[in-house]
């Protein structure tokens, strides 16, 4: 599987040798987004003890957009847009991580075993964020609105370079923090009581893991906008292919699968079929279909 992933990654750019740097940047963006989405979804699903929910279904991405919109609202569109990208992105990410950690540790702290309630709460929270974002946007004047509008739709097209490097850096940092937590994640997957019984500081780990998830979602949302169902698709594939409970294998596999899906998908769509932005649509279609199947089949573990 590793070999397959690398083959795809290395094979692709040599497909068309011209405009290599541009393609390399886009490739980097796709890999970062795919890896961030894949890893964050697997981590989140373990924390939530739920294979249907993903950070995006629970509105993490909307939370990010809400924070963005809220900042534009507070500071005024033009002056906000004039701010340098670096502190802006970091501020947005930080705020979002804080909000996600507080909110979701409250949600997951106790009684998280009731799957149906969790799904319901999750979807409602997601809708809440989305509506709040729309509401804030209504309050903005048109010029300010256009500032945030650009961020609202998933697009694998051109990406701002500074954001890309920032996001890549942040992503690497988060992965570095995540690596030592991969083994405790196996224990956390057993549930709160067994994990505490085995000496894992469950509540502290939970907050940290939610922060990590939030940061990864911020990375991918900032780069390409909201993509709802990619994570679900990737996490399901990772679990199906790896057939293990060990996160030291699951999380890298999910990151790899996410990157491969995006790179191969975008490559095929752009180069072979000559279509521009349909990858998001296709991924959402299959991801959404999978979501329905999983919900209808019910027996998800």
């Amino acid at each position, binding site marked *: 599987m590793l070999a397959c992933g690398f083959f795809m990654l290395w094979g692709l750019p040599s497909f068309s040798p011209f405009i290599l740097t541009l393609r390399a940047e886009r490739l980097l963006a796709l890999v970062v987004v795919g890896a961030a989405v894949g890893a964050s979804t697997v981590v989140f699903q*373990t924390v939530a*003890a*739920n294979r249907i929910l993903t950070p995006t279904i629970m509105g993490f991405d909307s939370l990010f957009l809400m924070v963005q919109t809220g900042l534009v609202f507070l500071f005024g569109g033009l002056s906000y847009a004039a701010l340098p990208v670096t502190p802006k992105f970091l501020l947005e990410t930080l705020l979002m991580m804080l909000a996600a950690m507080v909110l979701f540790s409250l949600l997951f702290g106790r009684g998280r*075993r009731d799957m149906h309630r969790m799904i319901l709460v999750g979807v409602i929270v997601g809708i809440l964020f989305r509506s709040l974002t729309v509401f804030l946007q209504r309050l903005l004047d048109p010029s300010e609105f256009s500032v945030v509008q650009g961020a609202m739709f998933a697009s694998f097209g051109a990406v701002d370079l500074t954001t890309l490097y920032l996001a890549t850096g942040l992503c690497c940092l988060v992965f570095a923090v995540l690596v030592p937590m991969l*083994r*405790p994640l*196996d*224990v956390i*997957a*057993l*549930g*709160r*009581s*067994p994990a*505490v*019984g*085995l*000496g*894992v*500081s469950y509540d502290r780990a939970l907050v940290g893991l939610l922060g990590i998830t939030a940061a990864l979602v911020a990375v991918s949302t900032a780069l390409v906008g909201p993509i709802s169902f990619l994570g679900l698709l990737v996490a399901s594939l990772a679990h199906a292919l790896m*057939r293990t*409970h060990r996160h030291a294998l699951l999380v890298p596999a999910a990151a790899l699968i996410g990157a491969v899906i995006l790179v191969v998908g975008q490559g095929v769509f752009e180069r072979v079929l000559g279509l521009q932005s349909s990858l998001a649509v296709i991924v959402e279609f299959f991801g959404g279909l999978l979501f329905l199947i999983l919900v209808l089949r019910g027996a998800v*573990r």
Partner: protein
Amino acid sequence: MISIRDVNHNIGSARILKDINLDIPRAGATAIIGPNGAGKSTLLNLVARLQPLQTGSISIDGQDVGKTPTAQIAKALAIVSQQNFVASRLRVRDLVGFGRWPHHRGRMGPEDHEAVDQALAAFDLLSFQSRFLDELSGGQQQRAFVAMGFAQGTDWLLLDEPLNNLDMFHARALMKRVHGVSRSGAAGGRQVLMVVHEINYVAAWADHVVALREGEVALQGAPEEILTSAALSGLYEMDIQVSEHQGRPLVLHHV
């Protein structure tokens, strides 16, 4: 010794545990009995720091449960809860291997594998060891969770209704095992604190008995003192006869 001092536990306005002051001696196997809802699981969970302590204090051989790092407690005390459920798809051997987590923290060594093998053998699980947990019967699952607690190798072992779902053969085997580990070894063996409803198993295998009722300690003492017709009839509010079999009380509660 586990010392429980002034422990109260409320859920909403309901008083689940009322001013519990209790010492669990290092007597070998201690059984907690009492009617449904008496607060037995709550007490066990508080001792094992699975729920936060609201008032009072609990210490295990001098270590304060509230102040000692949870990783350190995990080497002194293991708990097998009344209800066990695992969300991820796990093989029996991997589950029992998690019992060794406090010692290896993710990297199993040879002594961990050995402990897992012993626990699997002790609970008759060797033939199931590579089966997935959700492909086992209820009693087999229960044995797997108890084996995980055993594999943890701690001085104190807390078992919340370990006989759940077990047939006669495995129930007796488990109690024999519990009795055995509380005897063996140089330091006087491992201490077991368990909630048991099947009163005759208590009569046959326990060294010390604590009876809870409506959140209070109703009785405590040696099995011969507690398992009397008068005491049990009061505890469970029903007519219970006690006779004797091979020097141990035999409780007739089913007719």
